């Protein structure tokens, strides 16, 4: 949800800098078909009640790493877009944190307390290792968490509720804002050593596309 705020922020910032939403249509997305099924599958498992650890493996422990790997492929295919390098860094951070911690993103008691997620905390204390409801997270003790600095240890301001998030999410947010802002300005390619950014829309239409 923090990332939806970033999308809205990117659009607002793009408008404030004189960009046009229509220019986003010039961003040539490759392998876009990966994204919606990946998200739909995540939503399906996230909104299902979590499976008790003694009853088996929560399906999201398998689906989340698989979809993150697919999204790495999507991000690599679109690495020509401005800001995608930052998204790729964030995605890699989240992917590694999930992969080394059993398929879910770890968080901890202190972060959950600070975020006011008391119900999740109670459930995690009753059933250690359970996926937290309506999330991709699992509460782990710091000693049991691998690469804790990549996990959900940060707490957002109330927007309107506080959420826990990871350093990877920060990179993804920054990349998304950059991609939308520059995309709205018609900058559809990231800077390369060979030359300045190019505006495909301007080249095609011979003028501003509004």
């Amino acid at each position, binding site marked *: *949800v*923090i*990332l*939806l*705020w*970033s*999308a*809205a922020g990117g*659009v607002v910032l793009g*408008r404030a800098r004189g960009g*046009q*939403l*229509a*220019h*986003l*249509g*010039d961003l040539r*997305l490759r392998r*876009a078909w990966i*994204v*919606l099924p990946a*998200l739909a599958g*995540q*939503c399906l498992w*996230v909104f299902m009640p979590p499976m008790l650890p003694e009853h088996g493996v929560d399906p999201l422990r398998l689906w989340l790493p698989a*979809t*993150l790997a697919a*999204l790495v492929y999507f*991000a690599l295919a679109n690495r020509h877009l401005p800001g995608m390098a930052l*998204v790729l860094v964030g*995605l890699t951070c*989240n992917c590694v*944190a999930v992969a080394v911690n059993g398929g879910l*993103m770890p*968080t901890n008691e202190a972060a*959950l307390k600070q*975020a006011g*997620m008391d119900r*999740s905390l109670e459930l995690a204390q009753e059933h250690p290792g359970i996926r*937290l409801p*309506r*999330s*991709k*997270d699992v509460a782990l003790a710091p000693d049991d968490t691998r690469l804790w600095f990549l996990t*959900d240890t940060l707490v*957002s301001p109330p*927007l*309107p*509720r506080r*959420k*826990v*998030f*990871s350093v990877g*999410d920060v990179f*993804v947010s920054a990349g*998304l804002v950059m*991609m*939308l802002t520059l995309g709205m300005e018609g900058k559809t390619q990231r800077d390369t050593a060979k030359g300045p950014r190019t505006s495909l829309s301007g080249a095609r239409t011979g003028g501003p*596309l*509004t």
Partner: protein
Amino acid sequence: MKRLIPIITSVVHASAHAPVGSRAPLRALWVLLVLSAAALAIGASGEFGLP
């Protein structure tokens, strides 16, 4: 709803100024949808739900 107003305003503005028959606004919305969906799927911020 108030949070969506700047986005809706941008879409309406883009539609109003696009050449007749242009698919640019629709393409722009598609790109916005895919990028937002990708960000949601990539992000691991706790509790997945509406704000």
